[in-house]
């Protein structure tokens, strides 16, 4: 069973800034790429590694408009361990 996915306001702003940094024709693809990657994380949080002062960190890749992107996010688990709470989105590196 997958975890529920929640996101903080700060991480929403991070994600919006990342999307806005892309050419407009690629943003729709990027939204789908991020959603697909997060669904994989929700199904299997072991895809994440401990980085950034020990926080669970998930790096993922997707293609938008034929161009590859590599982004990452940090998250924490809710106290009842039913949901993943995304705390930060960032650009990991260029492909």
């Amino acid at each position, binding site marked *: 069973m997958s975890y*529920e*996915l*929640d*996101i*903080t*306001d*700060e*991480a*929403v702003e*991070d*994600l*919006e*800034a*990342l*999307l806005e*940094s892309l050419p*407009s024709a690629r*943003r*729709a693809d990027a*939204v789908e790429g*991020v*959603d697909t990657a*997060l669904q994989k994380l929700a199904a299997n949080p072991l895809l994440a590694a401990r980085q*950034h*002062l*020990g*926080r669970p960190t998930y790096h993922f890749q997707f293609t938008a408009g034929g161009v590859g992107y590599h982004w*990452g996010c*940090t998250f*924490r688990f809710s106290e009842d361990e039913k949901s993943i*709470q*995304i*705390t*930060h989105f*960032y*650009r*990991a*590196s260029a492909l």
Partner: protein
Amino acid sequence: MPELSRNALVLRYLLEVAPSVGHTKLAKFAYLADLEARKYLARPISRFRYVRDQHGPFDAKAFFAARDELVRKGYMTETPVECGPYVEYQLQPTSRVPEYDFTVPEAEVLSYVARTYLSKTARDLCEEIVYQTPPMQNLKLGDEVPMDQMNGESRDKLGFNLERMLAGEASAEAGRLRPMAEVVNELRARYH
């Protein structure tokens, strides 16, 4: 103005998270915290200037000055403990707590380092962690440790940002969260 120097505050904070350590571990915690701070904040937390000492990166003069300051002002005790043929010194924070002036990210880095490496022996900490850090490579005894090379690997404004991650964590802690599906749907409506 804080009653203690910056270096004394760093040692006292580390000691609060990781009490009962000796000189070696405390000095190495400070070094590792400065490395992490340079990586994430592009600046160190302490004012130590590390040189390649016989036992790794160390600023002996400044370290012992900070130690003396903490003991003299009643923020720390130092107790000799026999370890076989050697005498090690166990450092303990007293109940007197200084007024720290660290930023939230600095405090987080200090706590992380002390928590993460507390369980390691001084030898393992040096050999497995400290000696393997990039600035410690290819140095001769007495060389200044080139800490600058760790300064903010990426200053990409969309790259990882410790302050933003901590702000996100504070929001999550306070329950300021939205379902991701709702956000994705909004973004789809905006960009499709």
